[in-house]
């Protein structure tokens, strides 16, 4: 079984790295979908994590290739016109890159959990959730599943003594 982490940026790198380390310690396969693989290497991501970068697929997308052509013709038009529009379309392009590339490489039946790790990854998480209705999706790694424990539910619990007993 494996866990798929979605993190487009490194804004929550510590949490992502901690989750990956936890899973690897528990013998799980970990895959990470991101834009730039090198950024994660700089962040010290464990090399056993299979990183699926979207950068190359994004650059192959017709809209991105159009951008390259515009830049060659007129750098000003690229900055002032094209980039403003592309920024709006980029989430869609990244989803297309995910679906066409990584989506075909991964064994979806073996994925136990998808963890959406940052804001930029939320749209892709949503698309994946729609495409794979049986997938467990979360904003945090459900660690209890890997400890062989039942997820705790609010209910009667043993609690520490009142604060007066602390000192």
């Amino acid at each position, binding site marked *: 079984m494996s866990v798929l982490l979605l993190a487009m940026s490194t804004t929550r790198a510590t949490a992502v790295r901690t*989750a990956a380390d936890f899973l690897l310690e528990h013998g799980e396969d970990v895959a990470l979908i991101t834009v730039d693989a090198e950024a994660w290497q700089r962040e010290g991501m464990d090399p056993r994590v299979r990183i699926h970068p979207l950068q190359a697929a994004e650059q192959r997308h017709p809209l991105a290739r159009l951008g390259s052509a515009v830049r060659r013709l007129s750098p000003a038009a690229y900055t002032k016109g094209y980039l403003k529009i592309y920024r709006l379309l980029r*989430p869609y392009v990244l989803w297309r890159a995910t679906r066409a590339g990584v989506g075909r490489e991964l064994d979806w039946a073996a994925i136990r959990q998808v963890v959406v790790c940052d804001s930029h990854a*939320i*749209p892709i998480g*949503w698309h994946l959730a729609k495409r794979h209705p049986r997938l467990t999706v*979360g904003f945090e790694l459900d660690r209890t599943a890997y400890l062989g424990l039942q997820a705790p539910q609010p209910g009667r619990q043993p609690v520490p003594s*009142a*604060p007066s007993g*602390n000192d």
Partner: protein
Amino acid sequence: MNVAGSMERASLGRRLAVTTPWHPTAQRPFAGSFVQATTAAVAGFFDSVRLYHTEDWPGPTDPVQARLVDRAYRALTSGPNPRIGFTPRWTGDGYWVTDIATPVTPKRDYAAWARSHESALRQALPSGRFDADVVHGHVGIYGGWLALRFARPGARIVVTEHASFLGRILGQPRSRALYAEVVDRADVLVCVSEKLRGQLVDAFPRHGAKIQVVPNAVAIEQVPQRPAPVAGLNRWIYVGKVAAAKGVPELVEAFGIAAKDEPALRLTILGSGPLVEPLRERAAQLGLADRIAFPGAVPPQRVFEFLHAHDLLVHPSKSETFGMTVVEAVGSGMPVLVTRCGGPQETLAGLDGVAGLLIDVSDDPEVIVEGYRRLTRQMTRLDAARGRAALIERYGTRAVAARLTAVYGVEQPVQAEERV
């Protein structure tokens, strides 16, 4: 309140809801340790305590992209069978925590971020209300605002202000307007220092009577004490964010001056931040690369290992609302050299020369050097046990719980077996 409502509430027992933007997580293990300590301190006074932690997830700056993120977030978390639920986890400190990822758009004002927190919390509260008699919001914006929006009518609202950025919030017209609503609705506003209270009273003089000072709880009783008393002040340590506002560049310069004459001096800068690399380079320029260590950030439970392996905590911050590290260091039996930057002159009131030394806030590194030399001369006057005892009396969990539960209007702990 009608009779049925009263009966229902009686059967549910005494309930506390806490809402906070800061609580320790994997991403930020240091964030909100004071919220954790304070909530743990009062947990025994309630039948049930639920903490809702809305954590900032900075997203795209572009408004259209931000709307796409928001739409996807709602789609994942709404509806009769949401794909992502918010499951509470038991902390072991006597309360439940629900971590709520909160997409926020950078470069907006605090009012916009408060609305983002409100929107995210709404997804995690199926009933649309906190099921609690007392709602405690940490920091006016955002926790106070969320308390106001989600407390049921008649619930007691207590807001703790401990934001170092309060001035910025009050300087933004829209954010100040939200804050005014919080102040209007709150039953009590608690500030963790006189400095913050002064700021709030100046901003909302009409409500001065309900603005009190109750410090953050610090579990000093549980702070491990150093195995042997400090014999010299050779091993300096700084703990915290490595940033200009914390005075870390001045500390490195000061260490460079003091280290010239004292080859045994060492400095450890424990933490992360934007100045780590520039200061590492500066240490090399000063020829002190082998005497100034930058081990990065460590988990909170390891901080005391570092404190015990050093002799002096130097905290040269320009401004602090409280100064948790200083309190923890004194609690561990370690002398401190700390600037009069707001919180510390309150936390160490009456302990100057006993628990360490207070020095002026200054851009001049000589001030730190002079403080260090004076402290070295006065070492025999230091009394670590007295410092620790005084802080337990002021900030220990029992002391703060007593003051806070009086603010909540509950004064008797509940029986452990009744708690859920």
